[in-house]
């Protein structure tokens, strides 16, 4: 029996998504702002544990809604993000983008509460489909192409995940979501399927390829859900899977290095998502309570400040039509509000004391210390410096300061300003009163983020990274270039391989033809030589037995056949 507790809060957003295209311009903003708040209220009504189950295929018990502090935390931040994203977007985004964003978010919230693997998979695919629509809403030919590549990657990821889920279900007979380790084929497939969504190597390029092609508001929605749902899935299914430490560290460094090379402001932010998700993946790999708390807390903080940064870049794109660092600069003159918000977002992502990043990212470092992982700790610390370099300073510096580009755009419209104020406030509130967030974490938090020696250490680390940026500024000069990422493999590599194959086939056919012609000439020479000439020089009858044979050859054949007959008779 369906009972009200078994209805996922995601359904509210789906209903809203259906209503958005039907509503007129006065009611639409109300739906867009009210639906996430209702969703948030519904999320907090869900109690811990499974809220009822439905028999499926006479054997499997589907559990559409299962509550736990971890699930509630992710759903909460997703709902907050739908609210601020909607507030930011509702005046400029088309109805199909807004509707798609709401269903996409519904998918993410559905995954949060999915109590079994089948429900999880369904919401997972919902996200894949509607996030693709958002990429397409970028509206440019580039967005169309990137959307197709994005869809292929995510559908592929979905298939891999499905193979894994089916394998696990066959092996264990259970569709329960429970912690596992990547030990056999099925669990590896699940892990790979999730990691594709987390933008892990070697396919992380789907993210930096697609997100910057989306619209001004689309990137705000995209930045929030897909990768963080993957982090949640890892937290639920693979806590303490050691391979994730390495994967996470690679993502962290990959994000930094490519963001340093990048010229497009929104692509810099896209690479820093890879970098930040790397921190969370690494924390899931460490797997202690401190680490898992850190991953969850960091995901919460990250979603908000990354949305804030994408909003700032979005406003710049909206007002100037440009997002390349080489075209921008000096915008602080006329966009002081956006500049300040970008700085707050940039300080938060860098983990500057008194911002949200500091109170969450240092939990992950602390977990590495507690486990005695020296290399991991130093790499995380180096990465903190690197984040300040590429996102903390580089992004605001090249967009809002550096040279005077001559652009004098207006500052953000009021609704965008409100959304940005909201996000910036959350960044600072979590930074100053971390206990508010710590209270929501899955495990009890015995962690004090602020003590003098640590604050001094991080101030030194970050401020000297800043010094390094300005000392090395000549090396950081932006060029009108892109950098080849792994997407080269499927954007160019595949084509090259296909061309090589085609060439090889051509050559094979050519040599086959040559050999064929040669064989025919040789054979016809031999037939001419030993089996006789064509009847006449211009004879149509070219077949061997239609030819005139010399008497001698005929006599030879007849005697040969007769001898064979005689032999056969006596045998």
């Amino acid at each position, binding site marked *: 029996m369906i009972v009200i507790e078994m209805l996922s809060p995601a359904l509210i957003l789906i209903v809203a998504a259906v209503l958005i295209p039907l509503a007129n311009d006065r009611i639409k903003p109300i739906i867009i702002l009210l639906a996430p708040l209702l969703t948030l209220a519904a999320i907090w009504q869900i109690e811990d544990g499974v809220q009822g189950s439905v028999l499926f295929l006479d054997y499997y018990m589907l559990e559409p809604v299962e509550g736990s502090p971890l699930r509630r935390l992710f759903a909460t931040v997703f709902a907050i993000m739908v609210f601020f994203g909607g507030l930011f977007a509702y005046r400029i985004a088309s109805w199909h983008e807004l509707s798609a964003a709401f269903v996409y978010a519904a998918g993410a919230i559905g995954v949060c509460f999915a109590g079994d693997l089948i429900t999880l998979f369904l919401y997972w695919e919902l996200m894949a489909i509607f996030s693709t629509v958002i990429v397409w809403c970028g509206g440019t*030919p580039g967005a169309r*192409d990137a959307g197709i590549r994005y869809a292929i990657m995510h559908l592929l990821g979905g298939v891999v995940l499905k193979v894994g889920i089916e394998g696990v279900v066959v092996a264990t007979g259970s569709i329960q979501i429970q912690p596992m380790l990547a030990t056999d084929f099925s669990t590896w497939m699940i892990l790979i399927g999730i990691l594709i969504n987390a933008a892990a190597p070697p396919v992380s390029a789907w993210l930096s390829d697609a997100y910057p092609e989306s619209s001004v508001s689309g990137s705000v929605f995209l930045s929030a859900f897909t990768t963080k749902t993957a982090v949640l899935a890892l937290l639920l299914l693979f806590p303490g899977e050691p391979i994730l430490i390495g994967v996470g560290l690679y993502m962290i460094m990959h994000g*930094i*290095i490519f963001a*340093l*090379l990048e*010229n497009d402001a929104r692509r810099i932010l896209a690479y820093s998502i890879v970098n930040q998700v790397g921190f969370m993946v690494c924390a899931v790999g460490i797997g202690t309570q401190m680490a898992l708390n850190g991953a969850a807390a960091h995901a919460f903080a990250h979603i908000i400040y990354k949305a804030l940064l994408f909003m700032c870049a979005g406003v710049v794109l909206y007002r100037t039509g440009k997002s*390349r660092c080489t075209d921008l600069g000096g915008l*602080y*003159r006329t966009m002081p509000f956006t500049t300040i918000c970008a700085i707050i977002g940039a300080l938060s992502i860098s983990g500057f004391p008194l911002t949200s990043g500091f109170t969450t990212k240092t939990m992950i470092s602390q977990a590495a*210390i507690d486990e005695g992982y*020296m290399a991991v*700790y*130093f790499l995380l*610390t*180096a990465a903190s*410096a*690197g984040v300040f*370099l590429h996102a903390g300073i580089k992004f605001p510096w090249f967009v809002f*300061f550096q040279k*005077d580009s001559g652009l004098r755009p207006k500052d953000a419209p009021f609704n965008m300003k409100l959304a940005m104020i909201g996000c910036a406030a959350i960044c600072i509130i979590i930074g100053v009163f971390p206990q508010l967030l710590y209270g929501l974490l899955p495990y009890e938090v015995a962690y004090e983020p602020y*003590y*003098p*020696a*640590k604050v*001094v*250490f*991080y*101030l*030194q*680390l*970050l*401020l*000297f*990274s*800043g*010094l*390094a*940026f300005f000392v*090395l500024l000549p*090396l*950081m000069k932006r*060029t*009108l*270039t*892109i*950098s*080849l*990422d792994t997407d080269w493999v499927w*954007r*160019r590599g595949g084509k090259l391989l296909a061309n090589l194959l085609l060439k090889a086939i051509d050559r094979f056919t050519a040599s086959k033809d040559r050999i064929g012609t040669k064989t025919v000439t040789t054979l016809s020479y031999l037939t001419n030589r030993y089996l006789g000439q064509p009847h006449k020089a211009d004879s149509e009858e070219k077949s061997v037995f239609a030819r005139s044979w010399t008497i001698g050859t005929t006599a030879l054949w007849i005697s040969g056949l007769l001898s064979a007959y005689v032999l056969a008779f006596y045998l």
Partner: protein
Amino acid sequence: MTDPNEKQSDDHWLVRPATIRNIWIVAIGVLLLTLLAEFFIPTKGYFGIDDWPGFGAFFGFACCLLMVLFAKALGALLKRDADYYGGDDRD
């Protein structure tokens, strides 16, 4: 400190050479302060090496230097013209 050739319209207070010089002075002052703070707040290292005085400053600067140089080297290999994937991506 004002350059007579500089046009008045470009002269936002933030980009005046005097301001920039002052910013550098203040910034270097702050950097020194963070180093001096270690005299009053003893460092707390976890793995021995991070107990050294000024480790955070050195580590931050050195890591950034390495990362920028590495990125630069990799860039020489991976950078392509902005329209490398261009229009012929669509076939």
